[in-house]
């Protein structure tokens, strides 16, 4: 029993811990871990054997990849951090969770969200923003469940019996607050139907918001809660206090202040303004310092306990996990440097980087925690320590095989894309050459991924068997502690007397320099949380405000007009099929790119793109200037059987687009929604369906005239072809003529006109 500190009663209180919720989250973590990695393995197989979707739309790469990423992040890692938070917070705060009902709501609500994701993403119901693909009803559900979790968490802090808030809790506080901010603002969208919405942001601004969110999802969902996990479970497993508490404070505040700025490094050399890109790079490089502060603090905590690492699988997982954290956070700033990013971006290098972090850091820290928790929450010995050891080695070898192969694939891609021959032409002008070259490495990835999945299955079996050996009834975990009373400890005001020769300002400066304010915050979680929120919001606003308000950021282009109703429907099919998972729509101003794809992308070309479709990797070539490059029949053949036009292509066939009817009646609502977002649709707002049918009939007859199949005008493929043929063509056109009273007639199969009066009215005289 602890002695009474100032401000404490001398009578201890007995209380119990809610480990039932922890048990549920532990099971969910192990189960979703198997699902997430199995889907990932399936995707890896499809990259070398594209027919492995068996012709089913729901199993195609573009639709399943978001399911894999969402399952890995929000189902596996998400349940893992909730298990960590529920277990460690109660013990660090010396209090049972505030509300068992809220804990249950949180658990079952989160699982329902995961199931909803699994039921919608394979059916093409997606917002297409990476790691934020879930449609608006699910986004609302996430917000509600997260708020319930936040209320439960903060109310537990409020009723704590430990005055000091340990550093792990700080990291959890940063997670709870920042994830809520990120989720709400990135997912602001206008619903069209129950399963379809358009982002309220367009083009450059949408890209900025998405990667502000995307990068900070890594920061505040996959980093800060795992650091909190590390700061609790590593000292417990090693039976050593954390190496340096001061270092933990330093790297906490540095992380919170720096991470939030770094998002724009995902958009180097794109149409994002240069100043934002440079700012993102600068803060990304600064991230080295706090990240390595955390890694060093973690590894040094094991001083004096290294001899136990060889015997204890929990410590083994933690050591390798923290090491991967160090490697990934060294590599991240490296990749944010523009000249490095010019090579690495869009290549598999990024995929290797992500997986070294996700499998090594998040995965192994989670597994270490699961093996630590299993005997404690199931109140029996771990079923098999040898199986845990086997998992460790199989998993480690699996990760190494995976990332080494994919690093090699990424660097190979990057170098081949930019290679020129002695005559100054692209050395590998055919994109598929670069794909074929890395297929052997993709096979090695399948092998490494298989090993990792085997390890996850072993963990699931071990957890399950440990649970089966549980006692008939659990002993309720209990503890006792002194209750908190009003603080009457040492004053935090200045110890120096107020002297007439020192002004009030002088006193304020001395107060700041003595930094006793921080000790006050550490006892006042509300104030502490508010300052974390302020840090995040200020940082965000300093990037968001200029991105949205500096007029020169996005110069409009007079020739750029909204998509026709049919093209808009085709764009929605492009989104639903997840084409952005393999194709970018962003040509960087780099010679190798302009040689290969054409004129570099301009910010003004994307002003009507809700959401943006720039993509983040190139398993296939960029599509920004694909419009008009091939006849319509080429696209029809290519979508029906990619190998018929590109023999070595690894793209799946999209046969269902030739069977499924296009929802013509639904097009009007989509156009209306875009118009509400400010897209100048003019007459299309009144006649969207008839305009779409007219354009579809023209394209269909053109396909037939070129020797293709007849009767495509009712099918989805015709809309997708219309969209693809439009891509990147606007800047090749002359600016539209002066306003005309009537909408122009369709001028061609692939370029029907939008009422020119509207677009011209929006066009800027400073246009392209």
């Amino acid at each position: 029993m602890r002695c009474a500190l100032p401000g404490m009663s001398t009578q201890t209180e007995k209380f119990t811990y809610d480990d039932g919720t922890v048990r549920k989250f532990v099971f969910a973590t192990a189960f979703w871990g198997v699902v997430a990695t199995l889907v990932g393995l399936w995707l890896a197989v499809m990259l070398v054997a594209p027919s492995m979707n068996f012709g089913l739309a729901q199993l195609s790469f573009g639709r399943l990849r978001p399911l894999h990423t969402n399952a890995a992040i929000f189902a596996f890692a998400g349940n893992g951090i909730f298990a960590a938070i529920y277990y460690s917070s109660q013990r660090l705060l010396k209090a049972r969770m505030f509300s068992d009902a809220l804990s249950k709501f949180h658990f079952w609500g989160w699982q329902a969200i995961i199931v909803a994701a699994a039921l919608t993403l394979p059916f093409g119901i997606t917002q297409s923003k990476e790691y934020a693909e879930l449609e608006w009803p699910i986004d609302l559900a996430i917000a509600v469940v997260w708020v319930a979790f936040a209320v439960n968490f903060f109310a537990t802090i409020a009723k704590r019996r430990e005055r000091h808030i340990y550093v792990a809790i700080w990291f959890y506080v940063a997670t709870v607050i920042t994830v809520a901010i990120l989720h709400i603002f990135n997912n602001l969208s206008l619903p069209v139907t129950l399963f379809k919405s358009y982002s309220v942001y367009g083009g450059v601004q949408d890209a900025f918001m998405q990667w502000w969110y995307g990068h900070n999802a890594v920061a505040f969902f996959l980093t800060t809660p795992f650091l909190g996990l590390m700061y609790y479970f590593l000292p417990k497993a090693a039976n050593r206090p954390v190496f340096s508490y001061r270092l933990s404070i330093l790297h906490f505040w540095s992380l919170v202040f720096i991470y939030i700025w770094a998002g724009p490094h995902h958009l180097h050399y794109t149409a994002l303004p240069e100043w934002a890109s440079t700012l993102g790079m600068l803060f990304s490089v600064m991230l080295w310092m706090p990240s390595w502060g955390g890694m060093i603090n973690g590894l040094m905590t094991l001083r004096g306990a290294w001899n136990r690492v060889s015997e204890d699988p929990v410590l083994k997982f933690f050591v390798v996990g923290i090491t991967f954290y160090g490697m990934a956070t060294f590599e991240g700033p490296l990749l944010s440097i523009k000249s490095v990013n010019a090579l690495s971006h869009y290549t598999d290098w990024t995929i290797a980087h992500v997986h070294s972090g996700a499998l090594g850091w998040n995965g192994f820290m989670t597994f270490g925690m699961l093996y630590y928790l299993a005997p404690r929450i199931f109140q029996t010995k771990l079923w098999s320590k040898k199986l845990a050891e086997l998992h460790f080695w199989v998993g480690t070898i699996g990760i190494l095989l995976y990332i080494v192969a994919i690093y090699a694939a990424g660097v190979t891609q990057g170098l081949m894309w930019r290679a020129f021959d002695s005559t100054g032409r692209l050395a590998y002008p055919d994109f598929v050459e670069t794909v074929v070259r890395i297929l052997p490495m993709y096979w090695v990835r399948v092998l490494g991924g298989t090993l990792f999945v085997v390890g996850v299955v072993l963990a699931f079996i071990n957890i399950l068997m440990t649970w089966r050996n549980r006692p008939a009834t659990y002993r309720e975990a209990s503890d006792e502690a002194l209750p908190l009373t009003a603080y009457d400890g040492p004053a935090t005001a200045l110890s120096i007397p107020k002297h007439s020769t020192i002004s009030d300002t002088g006193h304020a400066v001395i107060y700041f320099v003595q930094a006793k304010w921080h000790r006050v915050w550490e006892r006042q979680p509300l104030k502490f949380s508010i300052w974390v929120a302020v840090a995040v919001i200020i940082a965000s606003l300093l990037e968001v405000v200029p991105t949205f308000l500096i007029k020169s950021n996005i110069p409009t282009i007079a020739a750029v007009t909204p998509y026709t109703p049919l093209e808009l429907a085709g764009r929605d099919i492009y989104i639903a099929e997840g084409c952005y998972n393999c194709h970018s729509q962003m040509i960087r101003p780099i010679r190798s790119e302009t040689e290969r794809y054409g004129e570099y992308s301009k910010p003004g070309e994307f002003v009507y793109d809700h959401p943006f479709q720039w993509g983040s990797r190139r398993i296939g070539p960029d599509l920004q200037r694909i419009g008009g490059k091939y006849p319509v029949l080429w696209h029809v053949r290519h979508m029906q059987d990619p190998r018929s036009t590109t023999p070595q292509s690894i793209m799946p066939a999209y046969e269902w687009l030739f069977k499924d009817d296009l929802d013509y009646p639904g097009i009007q609502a989509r156009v209306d929604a875009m118009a509400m977002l400010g897209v100048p649709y003019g007459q299309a707002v009144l006649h969207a369906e008839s305009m779409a049918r007219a354009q579809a009939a023209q394209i269909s007859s053109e396909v037939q005239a070129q020797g293709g199949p007849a009767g495509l005008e009712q099918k989805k493929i015709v809309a997708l072809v219309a969209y693809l043929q439009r891509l990147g063509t606007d800047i090749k056109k002359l600016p539209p003529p002066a306003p005309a009273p009537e909408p122009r007639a369709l001028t061609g199969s692939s370029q029907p006109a939008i009422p020119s009066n509207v677009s011209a009215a929006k066009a800027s005289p400073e246009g392209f």
Partner: protein
Amino acid sequence: MKLSDVVSALNVSVFAQVPLLVFFGIFIGVVLHLLQGKSQFEHARQLPLDASNSDAERDQ
């Protein structure tokens, strides 16, 4: 005058300089706090290990 006019009139380098100043200000503040002495952090450092007897008994 709109906010966009004000923001557009500013030199874009301001938007990089302000965050740097904000960060370094906070960084210096935290460092000063940490220099206050080691002893005050000792209690916090031990918190994860401060398990009750009942908790310790369950440790396998």
